[in-house]
């Protein structure tokens, strides 16, 4: 029977998908959640409680770091959007043919290179003995070497750099699909450049803006390398706390709770972003 055979084919196709999602995504996250609810009361003795979450709330260092990570990520997202939007518009609407392909590729290449290499590059540029410091001394603008590494501005530079592609690709895609005649029609009907940007270009690009912002925010929130390597001693990042709970302090219960809080924040922002603009996850992800 053909239906039996197609049923068999269906189950054979479904199996790998289910195994992948259940064993590597669903069960680990359920497991992590359960671990986060465990309170160690003795050697290999545990009770179920919200104690780990209480620790988070009672320790200002933890929730300060959490809040700092969140608003730094939001700032990085906004900055990436502001820097990336004119570039995307330029690529999508003001170039064509070979120039367009080349400039688009030039935006892609840094993404293919390991984040570690990119961050390393910024370290060489920004540090006390680095290229910028030497250049400024050479110009006579400063007297001695200056340290530009290990501060929040350095983290921001690195985050924006690392995320740029994820903003530019969806923006170029949506802006490319904007019919030029809509912009011309706006002009023809008397609109100024700013009015066209506000009433035609931005509303059209909204799906791209949303998907770009969501991805950039998540990447910034979950970033580990950039804050660790470019940030100073006191520029803590929440992923750094998770790492130290797991690897150096071996407190998996608290680490899991932290992990869940980070996941919760990231999901919340994604959800709110999608709801506010009436987009669906599937459509948004297809953009990027």
């Amino acid at each position, binding site marked *: 029977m053909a239906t039996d*055979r197609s049923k068999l084919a*269906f189950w*054979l*196709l479904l199996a*790998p*998908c289910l195994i*992948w*999602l259940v064993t*590597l*995504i669903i*069960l680990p996250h359920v*497991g*992590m959640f359960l*671990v986060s609810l465990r309170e160690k009361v003795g050697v290999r003795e545990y009770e179920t409680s919200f104690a780990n979450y209480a620790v988070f709330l009672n320790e200002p260092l933890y929730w300060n770091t959490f809040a700092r990570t969140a608003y730094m990520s939001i700032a990085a997202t906004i900055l990436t959007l502001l820097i990336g939007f*004119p*570039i995307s518009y330029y690529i999508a609407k*003001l*170039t064509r043919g070979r120039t367009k392909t080349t400039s688009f590729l*030039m935006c*892609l290449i*840094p993404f*293919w*290179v*390991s*984040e*570690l*290499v*990119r961050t*390393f*590059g*910024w*370290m*060489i*540029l920004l540090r006390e*003995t*680095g*290229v910028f410091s030497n250049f400024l001394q050479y110009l006579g603008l400063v007297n001695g070497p200056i340290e530009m590494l290990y501060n929040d501005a350095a983290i921001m530079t690195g985050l924006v*750099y690392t995320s*740029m592609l994820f903003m530019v690709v969806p923006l170029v895609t949506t802006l490319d699909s904007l019919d*030029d005649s809509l*912009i*011309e029609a706006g*002009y023809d009907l008397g609109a100024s*450049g700013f009015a066209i940007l506000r009433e035609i270009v931005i509303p059209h690009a909204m799906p791209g803006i949303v998907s770009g912002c969501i991805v950039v925010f998540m990447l910034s929130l*979950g*970033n*580990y*390398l950039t804050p660790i390597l470019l940030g100073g001693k006191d520029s803590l990042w929440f*992923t750094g706390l*998770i790492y130290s709970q*797991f*690897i150096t302090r071996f407190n998996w219960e608290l*680490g*899991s709770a932290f*992990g869940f809080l*980070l996941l919760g924040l*990231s999901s919340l922002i994604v959800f709110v972003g999608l709801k506010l603009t009436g987009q669906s*996850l*599937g459509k948004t*992800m297809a953009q990027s």
Partner: protein
Amino acid sequence: MITGIPQSRAFKWSYRAYVTLFFIYLALPLATVCAFAFNDSVFPSLPWEGFTLDWFFGTDAPYIGVFHESPILRSLVTSGVVAFWVSVLAVFVGTCNAFLFVRHEFRGKAILYVLMLLPLIIPGIILGISILVFSSTVANFLEDATGLWFDRLRPGLILVVLGQFSFITTFATLVISARLQKFDPSLEEAALNLGATHWGAVRAVTLPFLYPAMVAAGVVAVLMSFENFNTTLMLVGSDAPLTITMFDRLKLGSTPVLNAVSLLLIVVSALLGLASLLLQKRDD
């Protein structure tokens, strides 16, 4: 391209200057990393001490080049092995998923599709710790129950492969589905009509159509695996892939040998990236 909107000269030039600055910003860190790979100094920083290839081919300490640095070479091989398995697994599951989501209608498809996309929005470090916690729990349980050792479920290369596979599969699925959607099912029907079996028709007609996308997905998987850091960091055991080795070196203070490795990585990943784009673009 819009030609019809008149703009002031000043605006045009400042816009162009901004775009130029942006591309300098994009290129600067990478260019710097590459340039210092040739600096005849033990620190990757100014002043410029002259041109050398020692950081590639040198054999005398402290000028030990990449090609004679055994820890780096070893981790390069480790990364290669991991990337290979991740890419094979991801392309296989991604192809199955593509057929599942493009060709089949079933109850709960929408939910499964969202689940399939989830790995994209889970931060990599969380994927890493959740898999770490889960596999250790399973290992503890099995060891308690059987009294045997289950070292393969402890941090190590197998977990690294699984961790990277868990989210790279989503990318592979998206790339391959996009191509399968463009496939005209009547070609397969024609093959069936000409007497092919169902599987024969898929193998003779559909899979060859998908090959470019599968290769592209494989290349993307290799690239993502090679440069992955966050997930790998939580799951790594004693054999470290390249990014982890480089990270440890960076924390300790670096020599230009890292620039040399980076230069090689930049060249190889740019080439692979271009190749995957060309494969995806072909017969679009």
